[in-house]
């Protein structure tokens, strides 16, 4: 470097002469206005975030049993929709249930002579029963757009904001700020008395 002093002075002059961006004052006043509203309601904002998160959790908690119950009702309805075995068909009751519940696709097939049910061993019967069992509970569905938006709204805050959700961190920061202010005010008072 040819002349260090010159370079230092140039940097310091650059720091000294920097101009505030145009419109900064207006933006500051607008932000201060927003800040008043936000900081004035800091506790309520925090509480509303917690409440929102609670609502989401609650809605999920209520939705899961509701979905389960709905699935259960649907299964029950399906079961009741099947024709009940009549007294007349008591003999047929001994036939394998699959034959009863399988709907006939065409009238000709109903008229056609029934094929004898092939004997099924116990292991196969179990596998078949498991295979035919209704999926219960229903698999989770992907989140809707609204649910995704809600989750994003809750998790949007940056790390600092999230840290402020911690009551201990918030209390510590407020205490530090208060202590700093008191110290400065005391110094100001001393300066006055001098």
């Amino acid at each position, binding site marked *: 470097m040819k002349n260090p002093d010159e*370079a230092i002075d140039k940097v310091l002059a650059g720091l*000294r002469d920097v101009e505030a961006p145009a419109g900064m*004052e207006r933006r500051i006043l607008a932000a201060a206005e927003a800040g008043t509203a936000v900081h004035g309601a800091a506790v309520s904002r925090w509480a509303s975030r917690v409440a929102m998160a609670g609502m989401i959790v609650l809605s999920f908690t209520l939705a899961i049993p509701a979905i389960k119950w709905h699935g259960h009702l649907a299964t029950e309805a399906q079961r009741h929709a099947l024709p009940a075995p009549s007294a007349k068909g008591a003999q047929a009751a001994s036939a394998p249930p699959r034959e009863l519940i399988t709907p006939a696709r065409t009238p000709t097939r109903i008229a056609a002579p029934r094929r004898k049910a092939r004997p099924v061993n116990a292991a196969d019967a179990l596998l078949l029963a498991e295979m035919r069992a209704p999926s219960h509970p229903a698999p989770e569905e992907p989140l809707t757009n609204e649910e995704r938006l809600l989750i994003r709204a809750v998790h949007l805050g940056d790390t600092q904001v999230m840290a402020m959700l911690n009551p201990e961190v918030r209390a510590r920061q407020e205490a530090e700020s208060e202590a700093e202010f008191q110290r400065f005010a005391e110094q100001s008072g001393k300066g006055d008395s001098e």
Partner: protein
Amino acid sequence: MASIQGGIPALISAESAQSDVDLAALVESYSGLLFRVAHSILRSRAEAEDVVQEVFVRVIERRRSLQAIRDMRVWLVRIAWNLALDRRRRIRPEQMDESFAESLAGNSAPADERLDQAQRMRSVLREMERLPKAERHVLLLSAIEELGTEEISEVLGRSGSAVRALIFRARTRLRERLGARGGER
């Protein structure tokens, strides 16, 4: 400023009614100074503006106890300084210094000369960051014309003579280090 005063409807009157703080007047008087204070640390215009905004939010938060403040200017500078230091820890200063150094190099010079100047400015900024904390802080604040030694000493909580000594030491150390780097080249 007329546009600003026209554009701040209920805020100022409401705030002034609650306390004796005329926020618009404070912003008009001090925002430039606070911006330079924050910029000296952050070297980013956007970040510095954010800091100034935060300072005035603090003012509103404290509006009921501002009567206890004797020197509003020093108090505001102190808040801006502390907020900027806090913010500096969270951003990547090298990126900021890079663009600030380029802005210092100027546009009128030829490209190769501009590059050389920007490189020199970067070296100065890098060496400034390597100074001991007290020396660095005093040097940065001393760059701001509006702040005298007494005000710097109040902002940093040091005596006036200590501030003067630190400025001298900072410049000497910086000159030596930059000279040594130049010699190495």
